[in-house]
């Protein structure tokens, strides 16, 4: 089992969701995050005073998947989120030791889907 974490542009979220559904990945968690990578944040001004290094809004998507679904999930996210410009985001894939479905108490692969 893996946990796929993707940080993407907020306006690409709908595209990513569509691609994930097309790849039969239907369970996702989405949260709003702030950050910047190589795309540095935009400066803000307060009454003429510059405030640098501000963070940009991004969307973080978390998806827990079985091994078979890791590659399709990554492909779907890339397909949905890529524009080719700086700021498209990153995907992290982490090992996932345990997964428990609260309602039934099921564990492991069965609990993920």
């Amino acid at each position: 089992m893996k946990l796929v974490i993707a940080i993407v542009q907020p306006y690409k979220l709908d595209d990513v969701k569509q691609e994930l559904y097309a790849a039969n990945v239907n369970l996702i968690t989405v949260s709003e995050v702030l950050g910047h990578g190589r795309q540095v944040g935009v400066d803000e001004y307060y009454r003429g005073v510059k405030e640098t290094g501000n963070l940009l809004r991004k969307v973080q998507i978390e998806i827990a998947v079985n091994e078979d679904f890791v590659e399709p999930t990554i492909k779907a996210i890339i397909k949905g989120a890529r524009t080719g410009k700086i700021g498209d985001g990153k995907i992290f894939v982490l090992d996932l030791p345990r997964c428990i479905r609260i309602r039934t108490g099921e564990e492991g692969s069965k609990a993920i889907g």
Partner: protein
Amino acid sequence: MGTTPAPQLNDGDISWVLASSALVLAMTAPGLALFYGGMVRRKNVNSILMQCFMCLAIVSVLWVVIGYSLAFGPGHGWLGQFVGGLDWFMLHNVSMYTPEHWTSDPKWDPTTSYGSTVPNQCYMIFQCMFAVITPALVIGSFAERVKFSAWVWFTVLWLLVVYCPVAHMVWSHDGIENHWGVLDFAGGTVVHMNAGIAGLATALYLGKRLGTDKPGMHNVPFVMIGASLLWFGWFGFNAGSAISAGALATSAFVVTNTATAAAAISWAACEWIFTGKPTLVGACSGAVAGLVAITPASGFVDVGGSLWIGFLVSVFCYCMVAFVKPKFGYDDTLDAFGVHYIGGLWGALATGLFAVKVVNSAGSGVFDGNAGQFMTQAKGCAVTTIYTFIVTLIICFIIDKTIGMRASAEDEVIGLDLSQHHERAYTILD
């Protein structure tokens, strides 16, 4: 010095028109600003508030320097039926009333030209607020995708080349539509149809926003506060347009409130019927549609007429934004066209139907035995629609080919607040 007696100023009238001017100011900022601001995605809310606020500032300056003269000043020659001259440049002679300035021709006496009991300057500042809100209404159609610099130029050019002539044609003494007998009490044609059709032209010229053509509603309570302030300020807009504090202002006040209430009810009812649940934004949109529709009729119709106008306008506007707009696919972001043009059109035509002499001896409609008024209204609507649509497209073209109209794709994605103003409205972290 003329032979006719000098007009008598009336303190009550002056008080009401000045108070109305302040009420109409509140319609633009914060009323319209919040109404529109709540309906955009939160990365763009400042850009809307900034445009509405700066519209108030820019137009206020333009108006006293040249705008009032172009719109309401005496015209010259053939052109005079379309636009005023520069006689009142820098408010030259548009003074507070002083008896020694009184001339025998009250129509063009620069001291008391519009409204016989208030100084010309009082009427001027009242009209200033109308000139402020009209370009601000257009913002709704091109929201979320225009560069701030382009917007500044658009507003300046549009005010001078579109608003002033249209106001002159309908409202000034020598305006062509005024001579035809077009009835527009408080600006259904001049303000709302005008802004709505200009909005459509800009939306068509610019194309859709990137990745969406739906409103990104980020703060519904803002929308409700904004709509309520519009309703509040609109009493100045309509009842103030009587330019007196008498029975006509009272009647306009009553029908404005009635039509607005009826329209809020019928929009909510439309939603209940077509989508299952009434929404707050729907009720607010209905109220605004009702305010728009009653505007040209407010000084001419009685309560019965205002109920028809109010109940029906939401049906028309709802159909426009819910069924027609998706079919055509233009991105009129906040429905300035769907609500203000369609509502203004219905109001202008309905004035020709429901105007009654009992309310105002200046106008009667079809149901009052004046069958020709409907066609007169239609003619007025056609002139505004065609003129404004074409000239607005030309303005867009000129700005686009010189400094560029649309924000870059990257700026649009980041949001206009950060990209155009280096200032965001909200933080996620402290």
